[in-house]
Structures are given as structure tokens and as C-alpha cells.
């Protein structure tokens, strides 16, 4: 069993729902106990859909278990078909129905309906939402486009470069900014003179899926959803698929180049966009203070990789942590983490992510809805870059992440939670202002008063409590309020990995080392350092002291450490 406070992904049948709800003309019958219909409100509330998701649930109860649940399933399929008359039907089980093993696929096939039936095998105790969506999309594509496959070995008919067409694969219901990404990427393709054959699954009908093979190549917008289907399309129809996801200016340009090569057209018309303001904004002197800001990145693999690249190359931040919950794309994330010199974090354990964020004391967290929880507890600014997200990240306004407008949106989103430059200077110079002090939230966010780092039952490590008196060991301030033991045990492997310590005992030293004392005046001096970098200063100083066997940190030790680490 896994102790789960928050889960990054839903069970796989919700992934299947995201495919069904994205499309027109398909219906999904799920064998599931009463109550699993909660998933409907993800679509009707979070995404604010104006129609019910095309899903029929059997909603069996305890009394049904004594009887024939298989019959109940068959009745549900028949009724759903008669009422909704879909062009294709998907059938499957939720986690509980998986245990009672009624074989939805076999039962539905036995009904001999006049439309394609796609049975879904989604192992709910091993796999999760994105896998469920990818598998469902792949099964649908195979079932519906498969009959149109050319004989193996046949050559693709060659179209004139000017009339090349592609499919956009991956956008779903309940996808983070999928709606606007599709619009943005369609615009890019349009400027290259490339037409879109089918967008799928978002907005596609089964008939549309059947003609996927008519495109010249595929644009994979979200590999988590569409990679598997695109691979099959490549094998079956000889369609090449794009590998670059156009999030960020650099990635967008690389994407344009890649697509232009696939289509045999000139990339120039789409390589620049007069409305792309992010690069100039980032070069303007107002952004200088963003240089080297420590940022921790976590999300699905696609968005985490894109955000890390933007942070490092387009905003000049320092990536101090990079991770994903998408195990399917762990390899790519590991490779990227190596280029930033950080240890990759591949986990779906919220508590582990929390621990790692605390240990790397970032100045900005780019993550999911869950990282907002962590960041709030630690008093660190945060922006959302990836699902899971809540209702506020399905905005009414145009807000793509992809393409040049996406880069504009991202610039604003990443910078907004940070304290603005002038204020940051002033809180460093004048520490005791009753209103604008370093422990206060940035004033442009409109909140008065003190941030709450670590005070309300939060982690001691990383977030530096403003009221730490007496001895502390290696960043674990051991607050009186219910502390999470995870924090106290944490060595800090991520600490300034770009700047590795000269000796090997940087890791795990806290377990054995003698406690280090802070002299009162050193502690006071530490608190003159602004909030957002104080955690890092404390750790560096303590490690510096530890490596040299200094047991009492004085003001001089603090500055010795500062000089040492800034070399």
C-alpha cells in the first residue's frame, strides 16, 4: 500500500473518460460501483463543460454483488447504445469492477452492436490516468483507422509540398491549456502553409479517427497521451511524428524547423513572430534581477522539461530541482536533469516531492496544483505549469503554453509570483520597515502581513522560521508544532549541485555530526539576509562550519562561508 495524501494522477479509467469526453460520437460504458460518477464533475465543474461526459456507469451496489453484475453491465451497454446512438462504443472497468472480473469487453462483443466496440483493459492497480488516456487513444486509433491501413510495404503517395497536411495528436478534455495550445499550433502550421487534417482526440469523431492515415505526418503535442498512437501510425501508415513540443521560444523555433523539414517547406515564415515579446522582456534590464533565481520544477514530463528549458535558457534562472510523476518519460527527464547538474526526481509520492523542495530551498517553484500546497506551506512563490490543476487553470481568456503567445503567457506567469526588483532591493537595505519587510509577501500581490514559513505545522527544513533561537542542526529547525519527521532526516543532496562541496561528507552528514550552534549575533546577521535566499545561506554556512569542524557559527563564519561559496 502507498500512503497517499495527494495523488498526481487519477486512475486509468479517468484517462479513458478524457478521451471519450474530448470526442464527439463516442460513448463509454464503465463497470463501476455507485459513487464513481464523481468523475463526471471533473468535466462539468473544473472544465465547465456544458454537457454531461458521454459516459454511462453501471453503479452497482452491495446487493447487486449477490446477483448478476454481468447482466447489469449488458443492460447498461444496451441502454446506452439505444439512448445515445454513438458511432463507436468504448467499454471497460473501474478499479472495483476489475476485481470482480466480469469481462466488459467480452460481454459487449456478445451483444453484437452495429458499431465498433473498443474494449479497454486498464489495470487500475498498476497504471494511472495518463497511461489510461494513451492506451485508450491508441486502441481507438487502431480499431477505427486500422481497416484503412495500406498493405505493408506500400509507399505513401507523395503530395505537393504546398498541400501537405498533418494531424494534431494528443489534446484531450481536462488537459492543461489544450484548448488554446491547439489554436496556437494550428496558427503556426497555417503560417507554414500546412493544413490540419484531423485534431484528435479533442473534437474528433470516430469518422475523423478513421481518416488519420490521410495526413502526411503527425504533430504530437502531448507525448503522454499520443506517443503510443503516433508510433502505431508511423508503423502502419508510414507517417513521421514530431518529437519537439513547442513550449518556450527556443522549443517553438525548433518545432517549426522540425515541422518544416517533415513537410518540405521553408520554415522562415513561422520562425519569428512580431507579437512574441518574451525574449525582449527577458532581455530588458528590468529582468536582470531574475538572473540565477533558484527554481524547482515538477510536473508531467512534457511540461517539466519545457519549463526547465525556459527557466534556464530564456529567463536565466538556475534550475535546482527537476522531476516528474510521468514514469513513462523518466529517461528524458533524467537526461535533462543531468544537463542542469541536478538529481532527477521521478516519483508520484507527494511527500517525497515536498521533502525535496524543502531541501533545495528554491526561490520559485514551478509545479502542479500539489506543489502550490507545498509552496504555500514553505512560503515560497509558485506558478502552475502542469496538470493536475484546478478550476482557475481552465481560464476563460486565451492562455496557451505553446507557440509564441504561449511564451508570452509563460513569461508573465513565471515572473508574477516573485517579488519585484525595486522591492527586493529595498527589503535588503531596510530590514525593519513595519510594512515592507523581507518576511512579508511581495506587496504587488496585495497581501499584508507576514508570510508563514514553517510555523503552521510545516517543515522545518528549507523554509527558515523567523524565530529560530538556540541550536539548530543542519537546517532542521525542529519547530514545536507538529513537524514532519521526513524533513529532519533529510540531507540535502540538491544543495548547490552546480557548485559541489570540496569534500565528500556533504551527504548525510547531519546524521552523525555534532550539533552546530549559532551565536546570537550571527543569527541576527542571518536574519538581515532577505527571506528568499536566507534558507540557502543558513545551509551553506552550516555545511561550511561542519566541514571545518566549527561548532559555533559567528558573524565571521557566516561571511567566510559567503565568500567561500561565491568564489
Amino acid at each position, binding site marked *: *500500500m*502507498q*500512503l*497517499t*495524501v*495527494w*495523488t498526481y*494522477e*487519477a*486512475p486509468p*479509467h*479517468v484517462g479513458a473518460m478524457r478521451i471519450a469526453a474530448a470526442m464527439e460520437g463516442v460513448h463509454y460504458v464503465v463497470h463501476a*460501483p*455507485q*459513487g*464513481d*460518477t*464523481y*468523475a*463526471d*464533475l471533473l468535466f*462539468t*465543474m*473544473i472544465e*465547465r463543460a*456544458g*454537457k*454531461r461526459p458521454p459516459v*454511462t*456507469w453501471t453503479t*452497482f*451496489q*452491495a446487493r447487486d*454483488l449477490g446477483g448478476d453484475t454481468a447482466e447489469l453491465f449488458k443492460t*447498461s451497454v444496451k*441502454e446506452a447504445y439505444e*439512448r445515445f446512438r454513438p458511432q463507436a462504443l468504448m467499454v471497460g472497468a*473501474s*478499479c*472495483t469492477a476489475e*476485481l*470482480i472480473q466480469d469481462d466488459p469487453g467480452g460481454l459487449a462483443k456478445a451483444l453484437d452492436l452495429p458499431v465498433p466496440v473498443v474494449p479497454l483493459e486498464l*489495470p*487500475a*492497480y*498498476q497504471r*494511472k490516468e495518463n497511461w489510461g488516456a494513451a492506451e485508450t487513444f491508441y486502441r481507438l486509433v487502431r480499431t477505427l483507422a486500422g481497416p484503412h491501413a495500406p498493405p505493408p510495404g506500400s509507399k505513401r503517395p507523395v503530395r505537393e509540398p504546398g498541400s501537405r497536411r498533418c494531424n494534431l495528436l494528443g489534446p484531450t478534455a481536462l488537459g492543461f491549456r489544450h484548448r488554446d495550445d491547439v489554436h496556437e499550433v494550428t496558427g503556426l502550421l497555417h503560417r507554414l502553409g500546412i493544413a490540419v487534417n484531423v485534431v484528435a482526440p479533442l473534437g474528433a469523431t470516430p469518422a475523423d479517427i478513421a481518416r488519420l492515415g490521410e495526413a502526411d505526418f503527425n504533430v504530437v503535442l502531448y507525448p503522454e497521451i499520443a506517443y503510443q498512437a503516433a508510433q502505431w501510425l508511423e508503423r502502419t501508415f508510414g507517417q513521421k511524428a514530431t518529437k519537439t513540443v513547442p513550449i518556450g521560444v527556443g522549443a517553438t523555433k525548433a518545432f517549426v524547423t522540425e515541422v518544416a523539414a517533415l513537410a518540405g517547406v521553408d520554415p522562415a515564415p513561422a520562425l519569428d513572430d512580431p507579437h512574441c515579446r518574451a525574449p525582449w522582456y527577458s532581455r530588458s534590464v528590468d529582468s536582470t534581477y531574475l538572473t540565477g533565481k533558484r527554481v524547482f520544477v515538477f510536473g508531467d514530463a512534457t511540461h517539466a522539461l519545457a519549463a526547465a528549458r525556459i527557466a534556464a535558457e530564456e529567463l536565466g534562472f538556475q534550475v535546482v530541482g527537476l522531476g516528474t510523476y510521468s514514469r513513462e518519460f523518466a529517461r528524458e527527464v533524467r537526461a535533462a536533469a543531468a544537463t542542469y547538474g541536478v538529481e532527477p526526481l521521478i516519483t508520484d509520492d507527494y511527500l517525497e516531492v515536498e521533502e525535496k523542495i524543502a531541501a533545495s530551498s528554491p526561490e520559485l517553484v514551478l509545479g502542479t*496544483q500539489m506543489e*502550490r*500546497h507545498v509552496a*504555500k*506551506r514553505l512560503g515560497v512563490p509558485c506558478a502552475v505549469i502542469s496538470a*493536475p490543476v*484546478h478550476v482557475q487553470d481552465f481560464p476563460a481568456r486565451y492562455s496557451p503554453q505553446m507557440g509564441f503567445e504561449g511564451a508570452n503567457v509563460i513569461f508573465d506567469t513565471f515572473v508574477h509570483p516573485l517579488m519585484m526588483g525595486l522591492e527586493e532591493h529595498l527589503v535588503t537595505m531596510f530590514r525593519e520597515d513595519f510594512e515592507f519587510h523581507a518576511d512579508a509577501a511581495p506587496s504587488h500581490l496585495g497581501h499584508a502581513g507576514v508570510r508563514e514559513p514553517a510555523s503552521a*505545522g*510545516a517543515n522545518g527544513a528549507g523554509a527558515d522560521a523567523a524565530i529560530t533561537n538556540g541550536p539548530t542542526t543542519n537546517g532542521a529547525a525542529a519547530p514545536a508544532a*507538529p513537524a*514532519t*519527521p*521526513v524533513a529532519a532526516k533529510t540531507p540535502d543532496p540538491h544543495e548547490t549541485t552546480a557548485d559541489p562541496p570540496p569534500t565528500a561528507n556533504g551527504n548525510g552528514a547531519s546524521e552523525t555530526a555534532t550539533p552546530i550552534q549559532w551565536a546570537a549575533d550571527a543569527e541576527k546577521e542571518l536574519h538581515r539576509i532577505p527571506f528568499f535566499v536566507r534558507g540557502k545561506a543558513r545551509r551553506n554556512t552550516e555545511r561550511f562550519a561542519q566541514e571545518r569542524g566549527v561548532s559555533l557559527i559567528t558573524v565571521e563564519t557566516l561571511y567566510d562561508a559567503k565568500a567561500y561559496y561565491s568564489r
Partner: protein
Amino acid sequence: MNAVPPIGAGKGPVTGQGCEGAPVLHERGQREVFCGLTGIVWLHRKIQDAFFLVVGSRTCAHLLQSAAGVMIFAEPRFATAVIEERDLAGLADANAELDRVVTRLLERRPDIKLLFLVGSCPSEVIKLDLSRAAERLSETFAPAVKIRSWSGSGLETTFTQGEDACLAALVPDLPAESADAAPSLLVVGALAEIVEDQFSRLFAEMGVENVRFFPPRRSGDLPPVGPRTKMLLAQPFLAETARLLEKRGATRLAAPFPFGVEGTSGWLAAAARAFGVDEEHFFRVIGPRAERARTALARHREMLQDKSLFFFPDSQLEIPLARFAARELGMRLVEVGTPYLHRGHLAPELALLPAGTTISEGQHVDNQLDRARAARPDLTVCGLGLANPLEAEGLPTKWSIELLFTPVHGFEQAADLAELFARPLLRRSRLVA
């Protein structure tokens, strides 16, 4: 509108009117309802030192997170032990795993005094015995932490029945009242703190002493129970809790539920009767409050009078709320759906419901939607899975879960309750674009 009913009213069954013996439309089919796990969303705030550990699948974790989690930015007092493939291999292993998870959790949260192991559909289907696990773990962690279990599975429970199951699990822990105990009143059902305080003041003024509330705000503060305990149910979904309390000697006072002026008056009157409160004194205490509530209601009545109302099944609050809407707001009832109808507990309510009201128990959601579309009610009370789609079809809705998350019981909240019905209509009249 009715005056405050005489203190003696509602004593016996009212025959020949209302809906007491009325036929009920029983339906089976797809049920668009929550499972009992959802009760955790409010119970974890009500009992402040309790923690709820669901033993279930990722679906259960995701339900809790979707129903409440993403809105809650503090450390929540609930979590899920997600069953994995290897737990399904053998039961002994699953128990050891559970012990490990509970140990980790209690290390992480030393402030927990009461831990609920909450059963789910998967844990029930694989027959993981959580009550034995609770006993075993209780021994390990006594006396610091008490561990109990209940089922919030969709197989067994619908939405608010989760609270019933949770409270029922606590009934054996209630201390026995002492042999020379004075008669006491036990109010059963989680109420908003403000409502609890109002009722406490009213009972005190009426001269009813020894009033306790269940569940308490702290797990160590369980009220005693015994043959001299009289209980008033504050919520209509407490069938099992009431049964177990009766087994321990408590007597249930038949009463309508305290929604609106009439329901609150009838509810308080039941206590007054049982505790021999002088009738004149009773009216002196509740009269001004009832009058104030009626005045506050009048404003909303203007907007709601003669509007038609359709309830989809959700919480079992539907019948009392329909009674309030019909009798105090003048609304016309098209259909009142309830997931489960306890005829005993709801007898006083059914007697007050306008004769001829269509009551349905259970659900076939597509057929029920057909009926709603055909009737085109002025207001439909339904869950969040149906609300926006019905709005998009032009049918005004009131989402039902809010009725659980808002203080709606008692005199002072009567107008707030009416406003919950009036607000969607008011909003529609305001939006011009």
C-alpha cells in the same frame, strides 16, 4: 404560512393528509451520486483531532481530492492507503502493509487522537477486515491513539450515509450514563458550530438541561448514553447511528427536521414535550425567534412563490427541504428524489409534505433527466455532475452539496436556506449578457 404548531402537534401520525402512505416511485439504474467517503470532507473539520485513512484505490484518493482536496491548501486530516497490485496477491500481506502505512502516518502526525480506517469498494470486495485491523492497531497505539473503522464504500453507502457509518462506529465508545443520571438530550448529526451554539442557547432558555451534541468537536469529549437519554436527530440520514443508540437505551424523539420555521419549531417542541417544558414558556422562548425568521423569509418567498422545484436524489435531505420549500416558500414540488427513504425517521416530514407529491427513491438518472426536461422546473436541485449541463439546457439549478456545507438548520438560518434556493433565480434575472 402556518403559525408555530402547538406543542402537542405531531405527537401521533397525522392521517388522511400529507404523504405518509403515499406511493413511492422506486427506480434502479445509473445513480449519479457520491459514495460515503465524501462525508470525510466535512467530518474531518468537525472532529478536530481525528484523522481519516481511506483504505482503497487511487480512485478513492482522487475522489476525496476532487471533492475537497484541491480547494484545501492546508495539511488535510485525511489520506488514502492506496492498494497496489502486490496487496491483491495475499491478504496477510495487505494487513502488514496497512500496519506499516498507519505507523508512518502516526509518526508524521503525532497530534492525531482518533484514527478512522475507512473502508471502500475495493477493500470490501477483497474482504480486507478493517474492523479487526482497527482492533489490532488500537492495541499497538493505545492509549495515545484510538483506532476505529467504518465503511464509506459506494457499495454500502450513498453520500451522507458516510456520516451515519462514521457516527455508528463511535456509538460503542460512548460512555454509559451514570445510574443516577438526570434525563439528558442528545442532538445527533454534525452541525455547523454556529448552529450548535444557537440550539444550546435555546435549550438552555427553555430549561432543558444536559444537552450534548454528537459528534463532538474533540474525540475525547464523547457524550454519555443510556436509558435516560432522549435523542433528537438533526439530520435525516442517521438510520444506523439511531438504531445503535436505541440499542444502548436512548429514546428517539419523533420530530420534523429543523429546517425552516416550522421544522425548527416542531423539532424544538419534541424536546420541550419530552422534558416537560411549560407550553407558555416554550412559546415565550421560541416565539420571537420564529417571528424574526418568518420576517427574514418573506423576502425570498416573494421570489420563490409558485415556482416549481425538482429534487434529484443526493443526501436524504430532499424530503425535509421539499417540505420547507413547499410550505414556507410556497414552491410547487414536481418530484422529490431521495437516495434512500427511512419511513420511520421521516414520518413527521411525510405527514407535512403536500398530498400528491411525487416521491422517488433510488435513481435511473437518464429517465429522471427525461422527466426533468419534460417538466422544465423553475429550479432543479442536483449534484455538480448534472448542474452545468442542465444550466446549458436552460434549466436553472441549485447544486445540492452546498446544502451540506452551509449552516442551514434552525431559525436564524431559515432565510439563508431560502436564499440558497433564491440565489440562482436572482442571478439569472441579473445577467443580461
